[in-house]
């Protein structure tokens, strides 16, 4: 059975599926890592975890940009018939919010390290120097972006939880293909 890299009008291709789950894993992993790194007692461990958080954040940002480009350049599978009118109307803004958060969250982290007076360079995975965003450094700006990053993270993880609950509802209650089509790639030959 040939599986397709691209989406069809009813199913997701494997590129969209891989990006979805990779970003999901990174997003949740980053939330946990962010939570832990602010609470460890060892300053050395904290420093190293923060650098890892930055590396994964840049990877996440890159994947999100790729994913948004892929989404814009691909067919969007239609919602199954089981989806009611309210959800049908709510799905686009909710999905837009999910994309907005996964983009804004790593971007706010980048802004945070860019304005910090600590001036710690960003060297993702010790591979190359990522330049700072052209923002003025100050303690005030750092506090602002730290707060923005924090609120985006907690709101974002809340959205992820709702998104996850909705997927389970579709699978176990409505018994439609909304969850499974994000697991099994499209097969154009069967259409």
């Amino acid at each position, binding site marked *: 059975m040939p599986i397709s890299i691209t989406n069809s009008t009813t199913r997701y291709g494997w590129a969209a599926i891989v990006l979805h789950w990779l970003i999901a894993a990174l997003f949740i992993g980053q939330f946990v890592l962010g939570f832990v790194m602010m609470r460890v007692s*060892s*300053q*050395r461990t904290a*420093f*190293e975890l923060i*650098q890892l958080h930055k590396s994964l954040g840049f990877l996440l940002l890159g994947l999100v940009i790729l994913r948004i480009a892929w989404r814009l350049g691909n067919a969007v599978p239609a919602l199954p018939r089981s989806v009611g009118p309210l959800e049908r109307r709510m799905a686009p803004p909710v999905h837009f919010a999910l994309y907005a958060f996964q983009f804004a969250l790593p971007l706010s982290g980048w802004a945070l390290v860019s304005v910090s*007076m*600590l*001036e*710690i*360079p960003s*060297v993702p995975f*010790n591979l190359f*120097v990522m*330049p700072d965003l052209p923002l003025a450094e100050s303690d005030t700006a750092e506090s602002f972006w730290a707060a923005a990053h924090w609120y985006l993270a907690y709101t974002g993880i809340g959205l992820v939880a709702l998104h996850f609950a909705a997927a389970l509802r579709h699978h176990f209650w409505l018994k439609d293909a909304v969850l499974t089509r994000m697991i099994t790639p499209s097969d154009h030959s069967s259409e």
Partner: protein
Amino acid sequence: MYARILGFAAIAACLAVPVFAAVALGDAAGSYTISPASSSIRFSIGKAGGGGLDGAFGRFKGSIRIDNSNVGRSRVNLTIFPESVGTGQSRVDAFLRSDAVFDSANNPEIRFRSTSVKRTGDTTALVTGRLTARGKTFPEKFTAELGGLKAGTIRFHVTGKVMRSRYGMDVGTPIYSNVVNFDMTLTGKRG
């Protein structure tokens, strides 16, 4: 053109040689106590993408003994209190004092004890010794240049490079260089 360069060279030679050659070492011989008020111990660590982390130690003590008959038997002792580190950023200072770097609570002193002094020029010497930090001791070399001698006060400009990883202070590499560049002005008062 050449005449002018030669002229400069001649003037420079006249200025340099008598000042230090004359004071060298017969007059300089004796024991000196390093005066922290008129001395400074600065350091700089390069970082990825350019720039560096600059700091200084505020508290230290030491002595210099210059042997009249045999320069090689001269001695330099220096004890730095890492608790007094200052970079202009209190969060960086706290990080450096913590067990991530100096662990100054358990290792309150960084000690240098010279083992040999070799004259390398009219006013310069290579000082070799044993540096102890965080319970680890390694041989290190510093270059000392006589900066002035008058009325029982002697001044040296001391530079050297230390690999911090050997002392269990490798945190932050390779974002921050392993090489710590020391730049010290040590003023000793006779007696």
